[in-house]
């Protein structure tokens, strides 16, 4: 079986987000780019599965829609342990466009399990995994917090309101993963970094697809009102303010 992990390239999660002068795009100067945290965990879990020979996982590929500037992120995924990578050479204009490109690649190269993160930390869309599955007409399971392979069949744990369900769907399928899928992201070792340089990274040109949405303006979050400090000797005053000023208790 072959696993594909879709990875997104995002600003490090501690980045102070700034915009260009017209507030129409994010100012990327000085930004440290990383693999989207969820995708890094998906990749980690995929590699853990492959490490166990009884899982029958033969290879782990990563795919990314982005320009050449995102190659360091792809090389990082290879250094962590992915076998090969595919980059679709295009800016990813929206989730629909990105998913259509990834679906096109999956149609050509057969994968059994496709892993996507629940959201990217930049656009917060929660869309790409589900859209890929619909473009391909294959099952998708969302809110997946665990995956294992039992007798050649994937068993997925998904989160539901107030609990979990142990589920299965026939392959090929898309699993959209979140917290729990792996504990800590796997870190690239020196040997991995050396090997990554020579691992195959295939560049594919995009297909013609129109995006459906467009960001026109960015805004900073509205500043919260200044914090009102309460005398630590008299915390009861807080309860009074919550009741009579904020009126929420």
């Amino acid at each position: 079986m072959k696993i594909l992990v879709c990875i997104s390239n995002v600003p490090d999660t501690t980045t102070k987000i700034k915009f260009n002068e017209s507030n129409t795009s994010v100012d990327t100067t000085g930004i440290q780019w990383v693999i989207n945290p969820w995708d890094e965990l998906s990749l980690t879990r995929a590699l853990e599965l492959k490490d166990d020979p009884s899982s029958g996982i033969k290879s782990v590929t990563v795919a990314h829609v982005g320009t050449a500037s995102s190659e360091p992120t792809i090389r990082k995924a290879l250094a962590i342990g992915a076998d090969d990578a595919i980059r679709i050479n295009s800016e990813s204009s929206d989730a629909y466009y990105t998913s259509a490109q990834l679906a096109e690649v999956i149609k050509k190269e057969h994968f059994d399990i496709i892993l996507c993160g629940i959201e990217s930390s930049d656009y917060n869309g929660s869309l790409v995994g589900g859209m890929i599955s619909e473009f391909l007409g294959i099952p998708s399971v969302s809110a997946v917090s665990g995956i294992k392979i039992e007798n050649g069949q994937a068993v997925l744990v998904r989160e539901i309101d107030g609990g979990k369900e142990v589920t299965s769907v026939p392959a090929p399928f898309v699993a959209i993963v979140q917290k729990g899928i792996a504990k800590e992201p796997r870190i690239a070792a020196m040997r991995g970094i050396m090997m990554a340089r020579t691992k195959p990274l295939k560049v594919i040109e995009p297909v013609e697809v129109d995006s459906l949405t467009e960001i026109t303006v960015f805004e900073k979050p509205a500043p919260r009102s200044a914090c009102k400090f309460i005398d630590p000797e008299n915390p009861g005053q807080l309860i009074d303010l919550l009741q009579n000023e904020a009126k929420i208790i």
Partner: protein
Amino acid sequence: MSVLVYTENWDGKFKKLSFELVSYASEVAKMINTSVTALSIGKIEDSELIKLGRYGAGKIISVENELLKILDSQAYSSVISEIAKKENSSVIIISNNNTGKAVAPRLSVKLRAGVGSGVSRLPLNTNPFTVYKKTYSGNAFAHVVIKSEIKILTLAQNSFELIETVDNSTIEKMTVNVDSSLARTKVQNVLKQTDKILLTDADIVVSGGRGMKSPDNWAPLTELANVLGGATACSRPVSDEGWRPHEEHTGQTGKIIAPNLYIAVGISGATQHLAGISGSKYIVAINNDKEAPIFEAAQYGIVGDAMKILPKLINAVKELKK
């Protein structure tokens, strides 16, 4: 034309979330001069369905089918898209919860409809159709133009007020054919939690961080949550250490919540933590370091030792409830 809103039910009951969705849908419908159709999937009594009418659903469609007992994103999205076509819907509204995240993207591809995901306000404009959404995990907001003819909006939980209107609703039972080859999710086992308040549903949340020092110190925090009728949460290191269950982890890589009141106790306020709670209406911080970044996000703060302050707060709430 119509606005279609998918209102999920939980064992035949709606939640505040469902009414929030219908209230939002009817405000959107007013903006584009049309009416609201609510869609319910699964077994549910009329007496429950009719409640949607109070918030502005003109037509309430109820669909039941054996194959829809288990959430299968493919089967659900095909049913919703079929109804959307029948109702000639130009806007479809779904919650941004687990179910919505499973269904909305598939629906988008089926209907070639752009998605505004996790919206927290009414559309800014209807021509071009522009929505306001969180990006960069709350560090920025974006105006997003949806260019397609049909638009899908997923609404962030607890971001819209309930608005009651005159009830003129009708209920319509509809049978739908579900292709069994589309419902392929098998559930082998369900692990349900106890019946405590769900973190994502709670109006009040009391949350502890590493400043609580030890799992043995949690009793007063839990008691404060109990007397306030709220749920408990924690920061990531706390769940990583196994001090608290993983379900309580809030933040960018945990649960994203938007209660009316979030009380952060011994939490420094790292950006990744704030990403999960910045939608809260009020944030209270209790921390012994007055420089902690959590105070920049909070409206009320107490600088001091949590172990000394929590018991006093519990007493003050008990006094109030007397």
